[in-house]
């Protein structure tokens, strides 16, 4: 690898880093939670870019597929399920600002010292080899049990979530026919079940 390609990598790193930091700031600072959710898209996307720059191609594409394609959708749905989403005003009190600053500094210090102390292996050009095949081989041989257990975990998550949501719907139904009309949006047509 020539010096030139490292410069290109550095440029891309700073592009993605700026994207992550900028959009993450938007997520926190925007008052409208729908806009925050959409800003989160760019944060997750930038993280995927960083993964790929680090040579973790499988993780990077997984990030796009699951976090952007799945978890973000879930978050957007969660936002849309929020009661009176149009008038939800996120207001951070001063106390949370102080707490947030302290926890940010502590987290940064921890990560900084971790990075400084780890003896990083230099593997050079090998880091750019595709990783999906080796990951598959490891999953099918050395890590077969964790692989199968992962599906059990997924099933547990699915059943648990379905159960919780179902009980939620039941509670709403039991709360009364039509519910308290004062909480509905002004137009009666869009009312939830």
């Amino acid at each position, binding site marked *: 690898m020539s010096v030139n390609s490292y410069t290109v990598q550095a440029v891309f790193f700073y592009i993605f880093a700026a994207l992550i930091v900028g959009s993450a700031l938007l997520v926190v600072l925007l008052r409208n939670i729908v806009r925050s959710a959409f800003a989160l898209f760019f944060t997750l996307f930038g993280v995927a870019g960083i993964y790929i720059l680090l040579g973790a191609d499988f993780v990077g594409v997984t990030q796009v597929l*699951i976090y952007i394609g799945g978890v973000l959708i*879930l978050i957007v*749905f969660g936002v849309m399920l929020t009661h009176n989403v149009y008038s939800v005003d996120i207001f951070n009190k001063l106390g949370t600002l102080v707490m947030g600053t302290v926890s940010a500094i502590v987290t940064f210090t921890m990560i900084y010292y971790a990075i400084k102390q780890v003896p990083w292996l230099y593997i050079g050009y090998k880091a750019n080899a595709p990783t999906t095949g080796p990951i598959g081989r490891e999953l*099918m041989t050395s890590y077969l049990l964790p*692989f199968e257990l992962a599906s059990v975990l*997924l099933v547990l998550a*699915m059943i648990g979530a*379905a159960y919780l949501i179902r009980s*939620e719907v039941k509670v709403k139904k039991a709360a009364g026919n039509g519910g308290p009309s004062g909480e509905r949006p002004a*137009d009666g047509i869009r009312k939830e079940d």
Partner: protein
Amino acid sequence: MMIDFSSVFMFLAVGVIFVAVTMLLARLIRPADPNVVKMSNYECGEDPIGSGWFTFNVRFYIIALIFVIFDVEAVFLFPWALVFKSIGWIAFWDMLVFIVILLVGFAYVWNMGDLDWIKDLDNLKENEEDTVISGTMPNTTSGQVH
């Protein structure tokens, strides 16, 4: 590998630039005289009723959640497919177990009726006004979604 992703990046860049240039060009060319009809929300040609900001049905959430679960499953299929040929039938049985376990969850969700959109068809008659409204709900919201 970086070379492969540089082509991905090119697609990305072209996509972003294409949209940006088109929007900019349209902004330069078009006359700007907004009126009430033009500024209204686009709802597939229908007159929008009320605000677009309303609480969605909670059943969207369970569908999205099941989607995420199977999204994760699909991701596991890619590394498996790459080594399937070299490992052979063992890999086939491994993946079969993996998928069958997930299908148990799917069967549970299906059986409990979480995938049915209109749940209480039997109860439609009682409590008429409320159920009629919730019966029309799917149409209203699916019009909203796309």
